[in-house]
């Protein structure tokens, strides 16, 4: 499929049109969406109107933007005016936001054409997109397997060639893990690099919006468009969007890379050997790789599964049947709220709300939530120490290739372990990227993870590009 970069060049140059690119995307969606369940809503009319406007502007000789006429899929936890936004939850079914997420505004300004909203694990809680109230999304590379999650729909949209790029959100690995399982590049940027305004919160101190693409250049272009300070988000970094595309081909000569033992520990053999091959590829490209151990990473999962649910329990309190979304009526307001939430949330969401409520409640706060925040401090310090020695860290994105439906649903803890390698970065607020590198069991793609200190996205894309080339991709 044509890259986003090429699409924008063609549209801006008049060799293609936004409408043409859009219709091609829509036809793939029509062809495969019933089977894969990627989109929960396709906004044909809105997208066509937007595409025509872009074509008119091109005809008038205007510069449209770096993503001129590029169709894009949007995870359905991002608000877009008038477009049904559900978070894959019954509780929000039918809700149409009266405002745009900042990233939506920025995409439109850059000429991109959002075509619809993609499926996810309900409220982004999950690692397989099986926790959607509207049915699971299938992995386009093997429809008997999951696409990963929670941004499974956005990953599948790109993997199925519906759109060249898409947006996801990553709280504990929700971009990187599905990117790995669908053979894509997916990045979780530095916390605060991309505005969260209009992203329906799962865990506010961990959530970041980020790109999916087929190659590093497209991902870099997309991230450049959505990044940069936003006065509507108090946690937004106070600086403009960095230039990233210019760094994609910078290579890794002289870079010091740390292969982290804890980021391959317990991974399947095929995954581990892919990481070892990635190490060689980086070395061959001029990087110096050392092995190191960061034992604090082992505590990430425990800390994460207290911090994220704690924040979620509070973030999801507002779904109470009063102002928007669905309501189940009852005698009094407390009973109404309880009936609404009981009917509206799925099991995994309830589980995490319960866990978070418990962790914050009187008597348990210090032992659980308080302790987890201290582990977070330790984690950040451990990263800092590592980055005193090396420029980047290397490991696996996820312990295995895409797994089969239902294989982890009966035991939440086994599903949670899918995120064991991705979680440390979220706790530290630092960026990381998953790059497809080789294949494993059943010929399915393997994701290799590169991690860097805050604001090192350019360096990460350059390293990702080196692995792409070594993996034989254009």
């Amino acid at each position, binding site marked *: 499929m044509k890259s986003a970069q090429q699409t924008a060049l063609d549209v801006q140059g008049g060799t293609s049109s936004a409408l043409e690119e859009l219709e091609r995307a829509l036809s793939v969606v029509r062809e495969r969406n019933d089977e894969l369940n990627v989109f929960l809503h396709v906004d044909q009319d809105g997208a066509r109107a937007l595409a025509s406007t872009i074509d008119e502007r091109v005809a008038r000789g205007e510069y449209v933007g770096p993503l001129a006429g590029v169709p894009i899929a949007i995870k359905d936890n991002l608000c877009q005016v008038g477009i049904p936004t559900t978070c894959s939850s019954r509780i929000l079914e039918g809700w149409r936001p009266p405002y745009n997420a900042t990233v939506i505004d920025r995409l439109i300004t850059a000429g991109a054409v959002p075509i619809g909203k993609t499926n996810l694990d309900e409220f982004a809680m999950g690692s397989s997109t099986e926790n959607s109230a509207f049915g699971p999304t299938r992995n386009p590379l093997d429809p008997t397997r999951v696409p990963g999650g929670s941004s499974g729909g956005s990953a599948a949209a790109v993997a199925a060639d519906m759109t060249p790029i898409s947006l996801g959100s990553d709280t504990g690995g929700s971009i990187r893990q599905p990117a790995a399982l669908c053979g894509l590049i997916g990045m979780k940027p530095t916390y605060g690099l991309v505005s969260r305004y209009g992203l329906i919160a799962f865990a506010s101190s961990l959530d970041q919006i980020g790109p999916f693409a087929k190659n590093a250049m497209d991902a870099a272009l997309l991230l450049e468009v959505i990044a940069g300070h936003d006065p509507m988000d108090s946690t937004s970094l106070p600086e403009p969007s960095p230039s990233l595309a210019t760094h994609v081909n910078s290579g890794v000569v002289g870079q010091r890379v740390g292969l982290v033992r804890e980021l391959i520990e317990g991974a399947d053999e095929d995954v581990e050997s892919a990481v070892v091959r990635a190490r060689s590829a980086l070395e061959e490209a001029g990087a110096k790789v050392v092995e190191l151990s960061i034992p604090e990473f082992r505590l990430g999962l425990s800390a994460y599964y207290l911090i994220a649910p704690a924040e979620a329990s509070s973030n999801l309190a507002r779904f109470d049947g009063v102002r928007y979304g669905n309501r189940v009526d009852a005698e009094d307001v407390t009973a109404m709220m309880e009936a609404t939430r009981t009917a509206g949330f799925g099991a995994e969401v309830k589980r995490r*709300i319960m866990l978070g409520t418990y962790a914050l409640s009187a008597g348990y706060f210090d032992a659980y939530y308080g302790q987890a925040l201290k582990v977070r401090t330790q984690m950040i310090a451990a990263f800092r120490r590592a980055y005193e020695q090396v420029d980047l860290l290397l490991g696996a994105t996820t312990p295995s290739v895409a797994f089969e439906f239902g294989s982890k649903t009966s035991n939440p803890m086994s599903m949670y372990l899918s995120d064991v390698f991705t979680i440390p970065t979220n706790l530290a607020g630092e960026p990381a990227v998953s790059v497809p590198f080789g294949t494993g069991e059943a010929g399915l793609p393997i994701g290799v993870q590169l991690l860097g200190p805050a604001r090192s996205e350019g360096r990460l894309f350059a390293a990702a590009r080196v692995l792409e080339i070594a993996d034989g991709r254009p």
Partner: protein
Amino acid sequence: MGSPLRREEVAHVAKLARLSLSEDELELFTEQLGQVLEHANDMSSLDLKDVEPTAHPFGLINVVRDDVVRASLERNAVLSQAPDTQDDRFAVPRIMGEAP
């Protein structure tokens, strides 16, 4: 080994979170939450007395905006999304007690 959680605690938490659980769900959640908390025991053994908690990855401070009025939403656009309204207000069934 028994769950670190008691059923009554789970029931209490469900009430705090405005969720009602069936007996079966109560049973299942007690076990599943117990597993997560048991996993979290790897933290409880650490001596972190002197470690400061981190609630937030970066230490930004004093992020403020100017006190300048911006357009509010159009009322009907908001009310039309509500489950029940009356007299330009959001309607709810009777409230049992005053705010705490």
